[in-house]
């Protein structure tokens, strides 16, 4: 029996030891037959989706179509009922998986920011690198400084979250996730709770991440942004992926009637 016989591809190991995560590492995500119910209501009814390294996939669809639930399932915040999810070739759902280990590699940003209100901006960012990756305070602070400088929030370092605007809070939330150097980022309608004039700043940050090669799965209502940034757009309805295509194709010549109806409503509402 050879020692390398472990069923995972050695050239793309997701579960490297703390501190060794390469900055630009990206991982592919594969979802097969994913089902999730809340009580009697089946929210996801068999999702198949693959996201290649460095790919940016946008999920669009009406509220309640299952976008958020799908992201929460990928981050193991919800237990799935059926199907399987692989990250970097390794199965992350099922018995015996250390979910804390998996989550180190998957950053998620929520619609409602969810910053820790009792901690300064810097502490929000350094908490997980220190407690999860075992970085020293100085190392973690250096990571935070680097990211805050990069996204123009350096002077907010010592502020508490409720002193920041929504846009600033959301950018801090993105930085907090990035400080773990994740190999996949999940963004759950990150601009939906923002005033319109604050949306652009947050979208700029995401655009920069995309340009930097970050693998991302993004649930969004911003159709213009999705068309701009996505390598692929998936339209969800009734817990299923109805249609997926490059944005140029999906937005201009959708093949499914439900997609056409959804996009027409968006256009009528002046959102595109």
């Amino acid at each position: 029996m050879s020692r390398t016989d472990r069923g995972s591809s050695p050239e793309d190991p997701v579960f490297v030891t703390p501190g060794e995560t390469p900055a630009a590492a990206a991982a592919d995500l594969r979802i097969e037959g994913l089902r999730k119910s809340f009580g009697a209501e089946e929210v996801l009814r068999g999702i198949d989706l693959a996201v290649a390294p460095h790919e940016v996939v946008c999920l669009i669809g009406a509220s309640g179509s299952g976008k958020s639930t799908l992201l929460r399932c990928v981050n193991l915040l919800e237990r799935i009922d059926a199907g399987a999810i692989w990250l970097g070739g390794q199965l992350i759902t099922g018995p015996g998986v250390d979910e804390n280990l998996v989550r180190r590699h998957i950053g998620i940003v929520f619609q409602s920011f969810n910053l820790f209100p009792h901690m300064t901006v810097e502490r929000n960012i350094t908490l997980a690198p220190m407690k999860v990756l075992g970085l020293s305070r100085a190392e973690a602070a250096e990571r935070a400084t680097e990211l805050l400088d990069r996204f123009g929030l350096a002077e907010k370092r010592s502020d508490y979250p409720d002193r920041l605007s929504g846009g600033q809070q959301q950018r801090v939330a993105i930085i907090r996730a990035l400080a773990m150097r994740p190999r996949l980022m999940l963004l759950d309608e990150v601009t939906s709770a923002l005033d319109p004039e604050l949306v652009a700043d947050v979208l700029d940050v995401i655009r920069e991440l995309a340009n930097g090669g970050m693998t991302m799965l993004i649930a969004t209502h911003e159709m213009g942004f999705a068309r701009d940034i996505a390598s692929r757009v998936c339209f969800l309805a009734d817990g299923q992926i109805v249609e997926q295509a490059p944005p140029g194709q999906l937005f201009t010549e959708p093949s499914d009637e439900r997609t056409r109806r959804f996009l027409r409503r968006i256009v009528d509402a002046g959102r595109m």
Partner: protein
Amino acid sequence: MAEAQGLPDLSARRSRLLGSSDRRGLVLSIASTVVVLAAVLAVFLLAPGSRQVRHTFFNPTDMWRAFVGKPSAGYYSVGEALWLNIRMFVTAEILILILALVVAVVRQSTGPVLLPLRLVGTVYVDVARGVPLILIIFAIGFGVPALQIRGISSQSAAVYGVAALVFSYSAYVSEVYRAGLSSVHRSQAAAARSLGLSGWASMRHVVLPQAIRIIIPPLLNDFISLQKDTALVGLLGSIEANKAAELYSDTVFNYSSYTVAAILFLLLTIPLARFTDHLIARDQARRLAGARL
């Protein structure tokens, strides 16, 4: 042009006006306080039995004697006895904080394996809150010694008293904890877990610190109540402040000793209340000001 010149003048006049109304408010509030206190004092002094009550409850000589005590005459210092109350409630508070947290966490737990523990927790809280404290004190204070268990049945009355207080108050405090824990929105724990923090780490660094800020006022409320209820342990024979006051009144037939005990209990509880107000105000100011590290 005219308006621009008029503006600073106007605002200056307004601030003068506001200033004088501030001063007027202060004078008014002092005056009304004095009037009310004088009225209450007048009623007390002019009541038909005032002389008798003042002699029985507020006699300075008796108050001083009760405060310093005289064991050879059959009564003990109320001031010294208060030290026992302090030791009892400090010990009880520490034990309550720990036991109540355990009970709260158990009752908050999910998962079928812990169901028996959850049941025990629920029954305990129902019983401890439902039975009057005085009965719990009697049950433990007289029941445990009667059991004649080596090492456990030979403690002092104060120990059984503290045990009874811990038993009763942990139930209340565990409910305070539970309210605090559930008032921290679930999304906070989700955010912490999503960063890879373990369940315990997210409890320790994210949920508990926020819950504690919320529970400090109700927790303090329970502790003030606990400080007073240490007086009930005197029923088991411990010479705490209230019992010492009782011994004085039994010996000298003057109730001024109880007034001394009341004043001492007041002196204990008021600083604690002010200190907590200070903590809350400081926390709020720091968060709103975005203070430097």
